[in-house]
């Protein structure tokens, strides 16, 4: 299995981003495979999802409700169900 250019670039970015965030880090190849890439992927995904959730809240498509223990529960905004359906059926403008 060979990486395509995009995958290769992503791995480069993960390694470099890890080292930017942790400039004093150092480990062998095993450590990069087992922990750096794992850490960076989790961080990347968590941030992207958090950003998407914030954006959907800002657009009013989902609503947030703070629980008594300060946890936030996200739900669909039922009043925007039609907008959501339309949006899901539209092609992605970025494509």
């Amino acid at each position, binding site marked *: *299995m060979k990486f395509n250019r995009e995958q290769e670039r992503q791995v480069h970015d993960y390694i470099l*981003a890890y080292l*930017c*965030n*942790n*400039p*004093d*880090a*150092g*480990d*062998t*190849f*095993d*450590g990069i*495979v*087992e*922990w750096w890439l*794992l*850490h960076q992927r*989790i*961080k990347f995904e*968590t*941030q992207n999802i*958090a*950003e998407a959730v*914030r*954006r959907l809240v*800002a657009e009013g498509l989902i609503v947030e409700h703070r629980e008594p223990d300060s946890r*936030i529960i996200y739900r669909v905004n039922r009043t925007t169900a039609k907008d959501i359906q339309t949006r899901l059926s539209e092609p992605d403008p970025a494509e």
Partner: protein
Amino acid sequence: MAKWNILLLEFEADVPLGKTLLQILGPNPDFRVAYRTCRELSIDEELSQIISEQNPSLILLVLPHLPLSGLDSLLRTLRTEAASAPVVVVVDADQEQLIELPRAGIADFIIPPLRNSEVLVRIRRLLNDVSQEEKTSRALTEKLGLQQLIGKSPAFLAEISKIPVIAKADISVMLSGETGTGKEMVGRAIHYLSSRASKSFVPVNCGAIPVELLESELFGHERGAFTGAAQARDGLIQEAEKGTLFLDEVDCLPQLAQVKLLRFLQSKEYRRLGSTKVVTGDVRIIAASNANLEQSVAAGTLRRDLYYRLNVVPIGLPPLRERAHDICLLARHFLAKYSAQLDSPAVDFSPEAERKLMLYDWPGNVRELEHLIGRVVVLCNQKIIQEDHIIFSGKHDNLIQLSFREMKENVISQFETNYVQSLLLAYKGNISKAARAAQKERRTFWELIRKYKIDVEKFKVANIHESGNPWV
């Protein structure tokens, strides 16, 4: 100490929004605010340094107007330089102009009038959200990180379950277990789940370094400390500063180095070889050994006081033969790994092949299993790995089931296959060079390759995947 670092970046200083924000944010014991004005919509070296040193929890980007060309690129740079900090754009714009804001990379936006209570609530909420993200991220790292230590046997799980607690305790750990049981992987897991995770993990095999060099390797030396010490050099303890030093085969440390290590563990102080100056170091030591350390202490090769000092928390990894149910689990994991790496059609084992794996006693433990599966994947051209594909390099393979003649042939063919494969691997599939090294005619060597149906091309591929090379 302030809980959060906030970086307030104002592009074009004559916009009064930045000053107003500064007044709203401070003085506040929770925030430490760095304020910076820039003329251009880009990040220069100085600003990059500020971001790196401050590690901001949030960035407030004050913009003069919208739309603004170059904003996209600026946000991308900020995401690279300060990946974990959400960016809040503060801009004097109306709702329609806000559509011009790039979609990605902005956590929130604030438009005037800036009301003290509203701004603080939004900023605090974002900062708390970051903590939640961080918490989720850490929990996932722990869960997925530990899943790399594959196994379901109770004895193994009992030891692995200690890792998260031990990781947070910042104490010395002693890992014991036969060779190939995964001591370094466990050591690494302890490091990456500890507060030292952002610093270095330095593994060193004490048994692989000449005795006379070990002390200088560990503690460093001054110029002229010994013959050949032309320059001063930092030791591994310095290299692992604020991180973790993994000392494998710790019982191989010479007596003098043991005394120095003990002193370091007790006082966090040491002296480089040839120096009178005492240096302090902040390093967590994780020691490991495949020997019975009680016996090493009794034999006098390991100092008792050092043993007790290192053995604060012991973890004992069981050998693979005591984790029978994990054998197939691990074999499938390695099969998937090497099949993907080497583009092999092999996807599963036949029941007979599984049985053969289960019956073997695995003196080399998980490492031996991994190497075997790697070798099988290179040689197997079928979807299902059969019993015959599995050839152990040990001496125990069904000895009693074969006649003397059969066994002799078996051993010879096994030797010839391994020998030819090793040379092909060493010479990257170059038959002429491999034959020369074997002091054989190229034609004779080629006959052996043909006899054992060795795919030379695969050795050229195997060399590309250095890490996945099962023979290294």
